[in-house]
């Protein structure tokens, strides 16, 4: 049986378009042996949910600038309503510390701030993907 590598969606919701960081993360995750669905910015929340379902994603990485992180709780709600709350979500970018608790409370697994090492992010994604597999039992 093939040991499936982590499947990760790297995406941006909201209106910011700066995607240099998210492209770099996607490349690093690929170089670390993961399968990455990379989307352009400005994705609708409903589209991200659809992606997560169709691709059977383990982790969603959101890259956020400006106030885009303020709608992440909406994404978490949409994932729950679609029955895919087992998908792990991380957020990276500019998130004021005062809003970090807001995100964690809504179900985000971890928030990464600027200056975080790429290796840290890769390790966390691997950890969370493993967590999801265990949650789903001896399925795949």
């Amino acid at each position, binding site marked *: 049986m093939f040991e499936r590598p982590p499947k990760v969606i790297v995406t941006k919701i909201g209106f910011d378009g700066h995607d240099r960081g998210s492209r770099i993360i996607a490349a690093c995750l690929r170089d670390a*042996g993961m399968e990455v*669905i*990379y989307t352009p910015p400005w*994705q609708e929340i409903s589209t991200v949910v*659809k992606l997560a379902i*169709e*691709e059977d994603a383990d982790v969603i990485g959101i890259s956020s600038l400006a106030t885009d992180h303020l709608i992440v709780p909406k994404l978490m709600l949409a994932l729950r309503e679609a029955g895919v709350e087992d998908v792990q979500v991380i957020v990276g970018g500019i998130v004021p510390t005062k809003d970090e608790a807001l995100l964690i409370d809504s179900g985000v697994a971890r928030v990464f701030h600027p200056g975080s090492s790429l290796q840290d992010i890769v390790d966390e994604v691997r950890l969370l993907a493993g967590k999801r597999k265990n949650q789903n039992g001896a399925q*795949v």
Partner: protein
Amino acid sequence: MKNDTLSFRDGILSGDRRIISRAITSVENGSEQAYAIRSAIANHLGRAHVIGVTGPPGGGKSTLVSALIRLLRLRGQKVAVVAIDPSSPITGGAVLGDRIRMGSQQADDGVFIRSLASRGHLGGLARATGDVIDVFDAAGFDTIIVETVGAGQSEVEITKFADTRLVICPPGLGDDIQAIKAGVLEIADAFVVTKADLPDANRTHRELESMLALRSDKSVVPPVLQIIATTGQGIEVLVDWLSSRPQRGARHSSGGTQSVLKMLSQLISADQYARLLGFELVAAAPGSATVRMQVIDQHMNFNNRCHGGAIFSLGDTALGLACNSYGTIASLIDGQLSIVSAVEKGEWLLAHAFEVSRTRKIGSYRVDITRMKDSSHVSGMHGTVYFLDKPNPALVMPSLKK
């Protein structure tokens, strides 16, 4: 979510997206569940039309697939896409970037796109592609498009899984056209020249046709179609042609599109006027037909342009075939033609007729007439037809054929 085989099977058959997705993961990984899932759905296969699409990167493949999906959706089909990207041979990772190029289809619930990494498998596909296609087939998708990236060298593997194999050729391939290896030439059911608005498109078209003429098997010559995916020109012809193709386990019934092509071929051969003017049937489907003609001396009027009557006849023939495609007589009772471009001698025209609406007695049809070389619009026609409950004599008495 329960993980047993029965709930997998029930979920797939009822079209539950999460379960379809999990089942795909399962067969992709070859898990313990995979065998059971494959058996559970084995009796529910054969409905979908599987189309393989291959071509070089940057060739306009994704734009074409996007346009195809849009039209298939408009015709009421549920569409699944398997998008295959290569895994890195060194790290084993992959960026699955095919699906993001399909734009607006991301949000359509009647479309299910799944990305697969090749995971070291050569031949252009992922190892589990066949199984993934089966899951979609059992789930009730009408068309399954399998997209691979290739420079025209090794994706002959698609021949195992696809009913119809499209090879994309962007214009300006130049010397690269020689690089389309013999294998790909053999397996292609049709060649699509994308970005047909580019200057090199006609040259690429001609080069393809001359290469195809050199094939050993001359019984079936794959058509070369020109498409401008961004505007949609040529897509209808492609989709019509696709719907006339045999699909997995297709049965030959009077409603099947395979037999519509046969039927309309019979009708047009029995049409003396059509033969006189040199009309040829190109594609057919229930309610639609495509006919072509080359403009020759006998079609010219006193202004040295193609006679409007000839154009009307072409459109009328296509329309007539389209509305007679149900096997019963239909007659034009009102027709209107507009011509917006003068046609010169030597030009090839294509008339594509399709049904707009139909009741038991009355039908409304439209015809688009374009130049084959660049899909530019020449004429538009619409007509009202009256249906009789009598069968076409040409079909009942085949001896009428010359």
